[in-house]
């Protein structure tokens, strides 16, 4: 059975929720502290996929995700590069998105970059945004984490972040966006209930992310940086309307994890 590593460090707090979903789906997932890899007690190469869950790694010091990202690059350098280059799936959720962006995996137009080529800025509202939003799937099939999600599907998921504003270098953002669109790297955009793209408007776009980007992958489609909490939108009982609307069963967020498992089969 394929093994999924849910990595954690001090301040990670969404690791076991993610583990619960994967266990429910029958996957072999394991929560592993980063130090296990640094001390050589475990090897990244023994895992088939990786999830960097949400939380506040290292208390969000310096910038959210920055310290964890640099540890990956400088402490686990060759193995970390190897798993990314080999195309093993890597999913960064919320703080995990901040980590993969700071680590230079996203947008990854020329492989892993030495310095970040994108940034997660402070929310345009200056507030910590913690509520449910709508997303639209824009992937044309490149991103492995959307294999089970119909193109154009609208999903309702929660966000909970203070630094979720995906930004590209200002002077070349439009040119880079064209490249990302051409490469099928823009995976999810914030939208309204009917799927109309937010076009930067608050509160549909909760953080002012450039081009409403909520999820973005690398050119090979094996690394997804995803700002909302997919693990909190997997079952009807997690949904704010579950009694009012009599919702039952699974919700859209679970499709991201099902897509990963379909890919690993």
């Amino acid at each position, binding site marked *: 059975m394929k093994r999924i590593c849910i990595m954690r460090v001090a301040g990670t707090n969404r690791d076991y929720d993610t583990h619960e979903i994967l266990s429910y789906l029958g996957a072999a997932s394991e929560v592993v502290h980063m130090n296990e890899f640094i001390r050589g007690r475990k090897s990244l190469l023994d895992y088939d996929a990786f999830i960097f869950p949400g939380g506040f790694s290292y208390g969000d010091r*310096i*910038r959210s995700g*920055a*310290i964890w990202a*640099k540890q990956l690059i400088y402490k686990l350098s060759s193995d970390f590069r190897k798993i990314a280059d080999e195309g093993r799936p890597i999913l960064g959720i919320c703080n995990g998105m901040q980590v993969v962006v*700071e680590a230079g995996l996203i947008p990854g137009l020329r492989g892993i970059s030495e*310095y*970040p*080529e*994108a*940034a997660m*800025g*402070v*929310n*345009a509202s*200056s507030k910590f945004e913690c509520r449910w939003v709508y997303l639209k799937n824009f992937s044309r099939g490149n991103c492995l984490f959307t294999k089970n999600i119909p193109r154009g599907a609208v999903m309702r998921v929660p966000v909970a972040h203070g630094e979720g*504003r995906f*930004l*590209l*270098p*200002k002077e070349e953002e439009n040119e880079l966006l064209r490249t990302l669109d051409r490469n099928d790297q823009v995976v999810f955009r914030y939208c309204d209930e009917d799927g109309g793209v937010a076009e930067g408007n608050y509160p549909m776009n909760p953080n*002012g992310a450039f081009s409403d980007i909520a999820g973005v992958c690398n050119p090979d489609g094996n690394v997804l940086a995803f700002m909302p909490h997919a693990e909190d939108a997997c079952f009807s009982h997690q949904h704010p309307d579950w009694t009012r609307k009599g919702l039952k069963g699974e919700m859209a967020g679970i499709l991201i994890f099902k897509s990963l498992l379909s890919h690993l089969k």
Partner: protein
Amino acid sequence: MMGMSLNILDPNSFGEPMAKYKVEVTYKPGVLDAEGKATLSALKTLGFNVSDVKSSKTYVIDCSCDEKKIDEMCRKLLSNPIIQNYSILKL
């Protein structure tokens, strides 16, 4: 003379003498500075006639290294070049 003998005793001092640097990280123009914005609003609430506030983060680093090394620290960890600028001052 005194400083010289201290440096010899300090294992970190080989190569470069111990120095103190101040690194200041600021947001690039046009990037939202939430801390500055909130401070501006709070100062106005208190009746101060303030037109703008910019926040920055300062690190004071003791290091037996040259400025080039501090620059590397800024590029590798302390700043994100997409949204931030930095300046280095030897104290």
